[in-house]
């Protein structure tokens, strides 16, 4: 994983740069999902006000907008630090990706600035200045602006995982965009966007439910809490179910373009057809398993055929394991995926041809000589990054992080679905099911006997009910961050899949200077997070402004 943190050599620079980028991205991701999630909650609350003209809903909408505003303000600009890190710590990478990264990020910056600065202002300042319809549109457009921003960022991220719509120019040493549509509408980006944004709605919903439960526990703002909780439960349940569906689609994309990531997520050492999904197995969290010699992870309990279905939509589909990918395999359609050794040889050929091409051009060699080298580069560019791989095992990501992070994410996703279903049955009086749920909870002592037949009663429950909702907030963040761990650890060692490993992408910096800024960020981010949480808590304690 991070093996070189205390080494004052190039490897130390790589690991500190990776750690710093991870820290910044994780910190930035604390704010983004809550912004996206609360945008839906506040939008629905204001829509209810628009439709009913009930002043209660205006107050509720304003309250959720206030919490949205605190989170938005604290998160704004934290993502810019990532761009600084590209320019300083990852300069080879930044140059190599060329305008492919620049274009989506520029669109994101412009759209975010204009949409958010306009509609956020109308949302907060415009209650008495614009019509209710225009205000409602501004509230939804604020959320849409944030979602569109997420789209462009995820397009840039998806390109690193599945580089499409580009061509490498050996003169400029940059990947140049040949199709904006291919980059912007890459199927990998679409799947990533859907799964990421929908899972963010779960965080917003859980946050909403937790705040409501806190009020119910304190026996205050009861109407706001019970009515807002209904919004939270519906948004949460729908989002959690959709996250499962989009997660399935994401896993298929990963299986197609990053089979090593899928194999690491599953600790699948040797693949084949009819593969079962590992429900649980013993994978030591601290060391890389001996995948070359073990048949499979020990104590493995699997769901038959489920991995084949997850990866290929076919219960009998073929899923390659780590050893298959390392040694080469034949796909079901008959195409042969070369072994990593073969890819390494072709990658070296591309790099040598690149050096020869540039030298030939500098020395004014004949066109045929230059073109010969150019055709070698083009023929082998697909495996360019493999030219930096010394040992084929270097392309295997750290399996334990992928394996456990994936299980934590999926496991918590299932917990959220179950929780929202139970809450829904407690809130609404759904014939048979609500009574059954209440009696079941009462029979195991989770609900007082007196409440077993009392529908829609959310106040006066044992306090652990409320604390469960509050405890789900950090768990929702853990699930979300685990998703990113799988996405980013799973593609190691690549900064750009198959094209550029981390040790070629990193700048030639001293490890200690990156370590210093890492510690600086740790202090800065911790302070800012403490400030945000304290302001957020203060506003929740204060409650809505009663007009």
């Amino acid at each position, binding site marked *: 994983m991070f093996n070189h943190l205390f080494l004052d050599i190039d490897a130390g620079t790589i690991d500190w740069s990776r750690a710093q980028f991870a820290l910044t991205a994780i910190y930035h991701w604390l704010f983004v999902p809550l912004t996206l999630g609360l945008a839906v909650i506040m939008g629905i609350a204001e829509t209810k006000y628009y439709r009913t003209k009930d002043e209660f809903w205006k107050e509720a909408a304003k309250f959720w907008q206030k919490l949205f505003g*605190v989170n938005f*303000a604290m998160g704004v600009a934290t993502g810019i630090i990532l761009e*600084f890190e590209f*320019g300083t710590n990852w*300069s080879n990478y930044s140059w190599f990706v060329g305008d492919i990264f620049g274009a989506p990020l520029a669109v994101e910056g412009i759209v975010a600035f204009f949409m958010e600065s306009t509609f956020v*202002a109308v949302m907060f300042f415009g209650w008495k200045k614009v019509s209710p319809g225009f205000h409602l549109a501004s509230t939804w457009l604020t959320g849409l602006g944030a979602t569109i921003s997420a789209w462009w960022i995820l397009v840039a991220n998806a390109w690193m995982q599945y580089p499409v719509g580009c061509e490498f120019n050996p003169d400029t040493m940059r990947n140049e965009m040949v199709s904006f549509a291919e980059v912007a509408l890459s199927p990998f980006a679409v799947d990533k966007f859907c799964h990421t944004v929908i899972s963010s709605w779960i965080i917003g919903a859980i946050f909403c439910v937790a705040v409501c439960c806190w009020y119910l526990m304190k026996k205050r703002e009861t109407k706001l809490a019970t009515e807002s909780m209904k919004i939270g439960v519906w948004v949460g349940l729908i989002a959690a179910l959709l996250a499962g569906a989009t997660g399935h689609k994401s896993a298929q994309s990963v299986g197609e373009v990053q089979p090593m990531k899928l194999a690491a997520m599953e600790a699948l050492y040797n693949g084949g057809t009819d593969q079962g999904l590992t429900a649980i197995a013993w994978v030591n969290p601290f060391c890389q398993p001996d995948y070359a010699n073990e048949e499979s992870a020990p104590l493995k309990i699997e769901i038959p055929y489920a991995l084949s279905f997850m990866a290929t939509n076919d219960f009998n589909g073929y899923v390659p394991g780590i050893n298959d990918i390392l040694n080469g395999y034949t796909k079901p359609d008959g195409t042969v995926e070369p072994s990593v050794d073969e890819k390494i040889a072709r990658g070296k050929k591309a790099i040598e041809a*690149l050096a020869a091409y*540039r030298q030939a051009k500098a020395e004014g060699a004949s066109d045929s000589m230059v073109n010969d080298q150019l055709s070698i580069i083009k023929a082998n560019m697909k495996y360019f990054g493999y030219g930096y791989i010394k040992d084929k095992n270097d392309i295997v990501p750290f399996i334990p992080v992928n394996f456990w992070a994936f299980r934590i994410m999926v496991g918590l996703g299932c917990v959220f679905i179950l929780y929202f279903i139970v809450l829904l049955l407690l809130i609404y009086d759904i014939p048979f099911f609500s009574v059954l749920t209440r009696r079941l909870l009462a029979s195991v002592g989770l609900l007082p006997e007196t409440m077993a037949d009392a529908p829609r009663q959310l106040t006066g429950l044992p306090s652990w009910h409320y604390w469960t909702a509050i405890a789900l907030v950090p768990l929702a963040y853990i699930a979300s961050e685990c998703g990113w761990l799988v996405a980013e650890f799973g593609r190691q060692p690549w900064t750009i899949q198959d094209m550029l490993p981390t040790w070629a992408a990193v700048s030639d910096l001293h490890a200690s200077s990156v370590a210093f800024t890492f510690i600086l960020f740790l202090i800065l981010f911790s302070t800012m997070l403490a400030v945000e949480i304290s302001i957020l808590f203060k506003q929740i304690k204060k409650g809505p402004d009663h007009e």
Partner: protein
Amino acid sequence: MQKDSFLYKVFDLYYDGFRSMRLGRTLWAIILIKLVIIFVVLKLFFFPDFLKQNAKGDEAGYVATELTERAK
């Protein structure tokens, strides 16, 4: 400026909004402090443009050398 003109209404929205902020004042103060830290302190002192400093105008040549040498 006419009070019912579009530009005045936009100006009034922001002017009146900023003037009557309560929690917003704290949030704007935090945003400004954060922006100063990010752009003045971090960018200027800790995150220089590495290629601009080291490539001396020939970024493509510098990256080409780096990428071909690191494969050896």
